[in-house]
């Protein structure tokens, strides 16, 4: 569903170096790695928000490299994204935030839009929050609104950038359950960055690990847990001693 081919991105210094990755449809891929290993940059490249220096990204077989903004907009109809800082539009209400992609990408009648917004809010356990403003919400609530906005268009591809960062363990588990429940229902392709390795492994089907911009592991969740590669072993199990 998503294929990353020899992707290299650098800002003032190289951030990603020749990454090859494959995210099959109807599965959850966990993208993990130490800080500053390039995970967010990889995710943004998959969304077409960053242009690579080398390599390409194929979304459902379509290459992103030579697309301009209108071309990318077509591709993005099939992608929903949750950003690390929630990226809720603070000049819109919660309801308007969730409705935004629907109104922009599709031509749906207003009642349908409202119905979907309410349904999403109920699904993320925030019923009746349509008229609240983002500033009045807690971190966990903002994340849930972000998930509602990312999933409202029923996109087949979902990109989550660290959905449980800064949340307490109970709320984190609820978010993981929510993401997994959605994925099982919609049979979507999910790529999820997480710094909470133990937590994300409870719902991931596949795992990819980045270290200093290079892909050092790609395989199933079970393979990740039993890997003998010292880097992977240390990170997955949270050990103090090792190459990291």
């Amino acid at each position: 569903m998503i294929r990353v081919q020899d992707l290299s991105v650098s800002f003032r210094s190289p951030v990603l170096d020749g990454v090859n990755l494959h995210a099959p449809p109807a599965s959850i891929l966990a993208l993990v790695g130490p800080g500053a290993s390039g995970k967010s940059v990889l995710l943004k490249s998959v969304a077409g928000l960053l242009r690579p220096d080398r390599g390409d990204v194929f979304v459902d077989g379509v290459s992103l490299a030579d697309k301009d903004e209108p071309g990318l907009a077509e591709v993005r109809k099939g992608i929903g994204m949750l950003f690390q800082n929630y990226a809720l539009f603070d000049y819109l209400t919660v309801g308007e935030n969730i409705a935004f992609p629907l109104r922009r990408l599709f031509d749906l009648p207003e009642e349908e839009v409202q119905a979907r917004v309410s349904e999403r809010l109920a699904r993320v356990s925030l019923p009746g929050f349509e008229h609240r403003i983002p500033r009045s919400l807690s971190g966990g609530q903002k994340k849930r609104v972000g998930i509602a906005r990312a999933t409202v268009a029923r996109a087949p591809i979902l990109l989550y950038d660290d959905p449980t960062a800064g949340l307490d363990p109970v709320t984190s588990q609820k978010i993981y359950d929510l993401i997994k429940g959605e994925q099982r229902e919609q049979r979507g392709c999910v790529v999820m960055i997480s710094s909470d390795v133990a937590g994300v492994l409870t719902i991931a089907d596949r795992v990819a690990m980045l270290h200093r911009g290079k892909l050092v592991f790609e395989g199933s969740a079970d393979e990740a847990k039993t890997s003998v590669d010292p880097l992977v072993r240390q990170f997955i199990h949270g050990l103090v001693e090792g190459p990291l």
Partner: protein
Amino acid sequence: MTEASATLVDSGPSALGRLMAPVSAGVNDIAGLFRLLGRTLTLISQGKREKGALLEQMYIIGNRSLVFMCITMGFIGAIITFQSAVQSQRLLPDLTMLGATFIKLLVRDMAASLGAMPLATRVGAGIAAEIGSMVVTDQVDALRMCAADPVDYLVVPRFIAATIMGTAVLIIAGAVAILSGMVIANGVFDVNFHTYLNFSMVTLGDVGLGVTKMVAFCAAIAIISAQRGLSTFGGSEGVGTATTRAVVGSSFAIIVLNFFISGLGYFFVPS
């Protein structure tokens, strides 16, 4: 990356190149600003933005700056009148033409040039900080994910609002400056209100030139501040830097534009 990084001129790593680097950086900067201006103007007719956004921006910009500008220009009017009176009394003791000259200069130039500087501070910093905050919290990327052009959604309403409301505010503030000058001239130098409010020296050319300057300055403030906001990077410090660059860039652009428009005015618009 985003479109902000396309360069027009690249001076290269040689010694001459390094010396010319600030110049080529400046040229690229100006080219980028004109590109943004072009896109903004095209999108004014073609764009698909939210309907309420323009009115909201006009309210925000007008509301935010009117009181500040009236106070500011009130002070400026008083100060300049006072200084002019003190100095011209060294030449001739007769202050009958004080008001007339002051009003002419105000309409032709000072309402725009002296008023645009504090306006750049108020409006420009606001635009850059707003857009910059949205960049660092990923809201601009989120817009792009929903096929919404950030220039259309964020820059166009602010551009139109700043140009229209900014000009209106400058005109009103200019009037306040005249009034405060009148009060000072009367209070300190015993110049009759009626004598001061002498519009005889003001020509249509003066009004045209003054309004042209106001529109040009406000448009410059809007585009430069929006561009600095959109090119923010680096978290909280980045927003501060963007605001700084917006105010300084706008102020400097006003001075340079004033130089050119005044020059043209000197040759083509008789006074």
